[in-house]
């Protein structure tokens, strides 16, 4: 098979569009594609994590303009995700590659928590939502408000369980660092279900956090010798274009189509990773 630079750019544009439409981000799809093309898993992970900085940075431009990112919550949670990402990337450098296929498949399963019915059935039974912020969260003063452009209503919110949320974000960072992905779906779930932030604020703040998480993981991979610049550069170009195009057409695509696309794509990625893991045994 011939994969030239223009071909990789086109693949990355398609991945960027799919990532933006499904909310998966580009990296989890890119890592799987690179592995299927025969790129060693550690090289795929290290090269993809660098592209996460590019995509989340461009998304942050729009999110910050919409005034939905809660910077203080984001910075507080970054302490945990950044530490997790450094540890995760260090683990990937050490462990045999075969484990990464199974970790990848297992972590992609958490993406299904974005589906409301599953989230309510699983998470809210384990962790019943508390109404009042705990003492530490009150001391941190993690509250805010925004005006919803659709309803025109002012929405006040206050975070709760910030320390527990921090532990959840540490796990998200660990997975992101290990697998070279943004782990956005997991981060949003933690912020919505543990910290009790509104969905729009969670998505926007999560994206801000992903930039720093990817930077932390990149810092570890830089010296590992796994970052392939020839792969990284076309992917940065393609995923950036794809992310912008995907973001622009998102509102024109029917919700049901997006749900089906998300389900099929995640299922396919999990299946491919499991097959790759099993055949590598």
């Amino acid at each position, binding site marked *: 098979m011939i*994969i*030239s*630079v*223009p071909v990789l*750019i086109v693949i990355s544009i398609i991945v960027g569009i799919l990532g933006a439409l499904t909310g998966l981000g580009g990296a989890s799809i890119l890592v799987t594609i690179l592995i299927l093309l*025969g790129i060693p898993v550690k090289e795929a992970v290290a090269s993809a994590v*660098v592209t996460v*900085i*590019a995509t989340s*940075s*461009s998304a*942050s*431009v729009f999110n*910050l303009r*919409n*005034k*939905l990112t*809660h*910077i*203080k919550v984001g*910075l*507080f949670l*970054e*302490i945990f995700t*950044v530490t997790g990402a*450094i540890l995760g990337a260090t683990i990937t450098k050490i462990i045999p590659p075969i484990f990464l296929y199974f970790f990848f498949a297992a972590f992609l399963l958490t993406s299904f928590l974005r589906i409301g019915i599953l989230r309510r059935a699983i998470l809210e039974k384990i962790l019943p939502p508390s109404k009042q912020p705990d003492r530490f969260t009150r001391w*941190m*003063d993690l*509250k*805010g*408000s*925004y*005006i*919803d*452009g*659709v309803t025109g209503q*002012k929405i006040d919110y206050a975070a709760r369980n910030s320390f527990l949320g921090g532990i959840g974000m540490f796990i998200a960072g660990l997975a992101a660092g290990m697998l070279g992905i943004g782990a956005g779906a997991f981060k949003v779930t933690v912020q919505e279900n543990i910290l009790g932030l509104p969905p729009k604020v969670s998505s926007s703040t999560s994206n801000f956090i992903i*930039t*720093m998480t990817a*930077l*932390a993981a*990149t*810092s*570890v991979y*830089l*010296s*590992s*010798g*796994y*970052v*392939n*610049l*020839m*792969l990284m*550069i*076309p992917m*940065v*170009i393609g995923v*950036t274009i794809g992310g912008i195009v995907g973001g622009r057409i998102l*509102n024109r695509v029917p919700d049901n189509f997006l749900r089906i696309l998300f389900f099929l794509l995640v299922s396919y990625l999990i299946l491919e990773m499991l097959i790759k893991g099993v055949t590598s045994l």
Partner: protein
Amino acid sequence: MKYISSNDAESAKLETIMGYIFAAGVIITFVLAVTSVVFLYHLHGPINLLEERGEFFHQQNFFALLSSLIHGSNIQNGTLLFASLVLVSLVLTPLLVVAVACIYFALRKRFKCMSITFIVIAILITSLALH
């Protein structure tokens, strides 16, 4: 869809500054990446990325890369130079965002926020320097 306000007026100002830094970083990175691809084509023509061994980043850490770029050492060709600059731009953009937030909070005497931001930047710089 437009959203009007966020947490408070002061944070809104910081959000605008951060947005500009991210926008500048994205544009610079994109231009450098395209230039790098142009150089790659000029030097090697159409190559199969699956057959070529690739150009791997081999510096001791990020600051060693910065140093080699400043002193012009260990950069053999234009492709590698611009690819390294893409990496530098990608790393510096979020780092600059956090640094600016830290300075912003310090100037406004919001010491709780400043401390959190300082911890984040300290972890990031330590990791960039150690690995």
